[in-house]
């Protein structure tokens, strides 16, 4: 990401203008309320803020262009590249855990899998990982399922 604030600015502008336009074309969210003159309606804030965010996003994009790559957010040195891989694996792992949890409806069986998986990608040894997973799952089961009666399997 060598363009500094350019891409975040573009995304912000796109988001802001999209919200404003969506609100304007939506029939229920009007700029003015129908009850009395000049009083803002349900669409007043979303339109106003959508345009504000959009315009500020454009300003950020312009600032990013003026920076000419002097500001760099993703500095991809070898260590960061390795970290990015761990990060991606962690995010994917959590998403897969969500899918597993919702399809099987067995939270307390899915938690040790996530716990074990995260410890593996964070480079913990097997013995430590097994103890950690068992202890942490037991803690969650006793505190939340038995103690607070949280219905995880909904």
């Amino acid at each position: 990401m060598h363009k500094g604030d350019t891409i975040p600015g573009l995304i912000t502008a796109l988001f802001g203008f999209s919200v404003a336009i969506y609100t304007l074309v939506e029939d229920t969210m009007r700029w003015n309320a129908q009850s009395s003159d000049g009083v803002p309606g349900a669409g007043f804030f979303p339109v106003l803020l959508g345009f504000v965010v959009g315009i500020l996003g454009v300003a950020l994009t312009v600032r990013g262009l003026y920076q000419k790559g002097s500001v760099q957010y993703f500095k991809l040195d070898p260590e960061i590249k390795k970290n990015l891989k761990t990060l991606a694996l962690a995010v994917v792992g959590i998403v897969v855990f969500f899918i597993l949890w919702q399809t099987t409806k067995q939270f307390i069986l899915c938690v040790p899998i996530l716990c074990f998986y995260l410890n593996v990608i964070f480079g913990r040894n097997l013995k430590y990982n097994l103890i950690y997973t068992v202890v942490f799952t037991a803690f969650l089961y006793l505190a939340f399922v038995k103690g607070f009666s949280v219905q995880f399997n909904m």
Partner: protein
Amino acid sequence: MSAEIWIGALQLCFQPSVILFLAIGVVIGTAIGALPGLSATMGIAIMTPITFWFDPADGFAMLMGLWNAAIFAGGISAILVNTPGTPASITQSFDGYSLYRQGKGGLALGINVIYSFIGGVFSTFCLILFSTPIARFTISFNAPEYCMLALFGLSMMVAVSGGNMLKGLILGAAGILLSCVGLDPILSVKRFTFGQTALLGGISFIPVMIGMFGIGEVLYQIYTHRKEDQARELEARKVNLSLGRVLPTSKQAKQLLGPTMIAAVEGTIIGAIPAAGGDIASIISWGNARKMSKHPEEYGKGSIEGLAVSSTANNAVIGGAMTTMMTLGIPGDAVTAILIGSLTMYGMQPGIKMFTENASFTAQIMILMLLANLVFLIFGLATAKISAKVLNVSQPTVWTAVSILCVVGSFALNNRFFDVMVMFAAALLGFFFKVFDFPTGPFVLGLLLGSMLESNMRRALVMSHGSWMTFVTRPVSCVLFIAIILTFCLPLFKKLWNNRKAASQKAE
């Protein structure tokens, strides 16, 4: 508040369960504060959903204990490994670590505990003394004043976004925009619900906070993890110098009285300003104390005075922030923002109603603040020398636990998977905000204050038949309006002034 209310609150606060939860909160807070990378905000965000399963007094006891202890414990890692445990303890590393290297680690840890306690108690007494008059003053507030108050809170948060005022503005506006999701507060029109009933009530604030300050922070730590930093920290831990005496002598205590009292006042005032947190308070107090000190040359090289001043200021912020939160409903920092969400979940609304309809609970919170300080003083002094052991917990151990607890906490709020999705989306958003150097504070405040801002602005316009002049013709509203303008303009004027000064110096 009458004496009866105070006596009743005192009796409730001394119930064994309340004391137990307070002590648990202090222990958890000490561990969270001492571990670099875990902040008081993260701790409060993760623990808040859990406290909803307890009685409100027990739940708040735990949160108060955790918050006060986490801020004091941030100094432990600052002193022992030169890495602040929380942002508020940044200046404690300036003098604390030098003291440790000189073989006075025990004294540094002792000063951290004692002066954190003094700062906390002083600011809590300020909260007790000033909150009722401030709350009474807000009785005259109506929709225009509340609208301006919300805007003022937001403008302060944007103004302290450092060099990122533009990004602060963007996120502040985006936060308000997100608060528009759900039913419109005046006409009950559905907005951005996309046919989802889960969205009718809007985006829940607490899952967003859990995601942003929990998993979001973990993801950022994974991304920025540096082996050489870890090695440096391990090296620092190996030093393991003798800690020596913990308590300061009476002569030292006498010398520290003046500077620490000034720091307590400064910390309380800075804490009461929306958005100005413990880090700002400790930096300002440390700088001012150095200017006024008889030995400014010792600052940064192991000054006991410097450490005491920093410790006092960062804990004094808590009472100040609570004053603003409880009387005006404006969060002083991210922690008070979560506490507002927590009070709302209990069916309470910060502001004047806290002092009329929930006076007993308000008194309980204030007493709990005092008790939390007392408990961490005893706990901190008793465990000063063994507290270093907490630092042996490695980051990956914490990452796994935090990630799973965030999922559990966000689900446990309403037994709803939708909140987990909101939490995870906020986590990813929080990660990208940090990577691209967007300040998260304005976003959080925008989301929290958005509905207060919108409903009061529209209510004010309905009452004035669409006249925008209502915001400047009422005295309090007008003063707040001027304050908002100044908040945005002062940094610009300062920049212009500095540029002109630099140009004239160049010309000479």
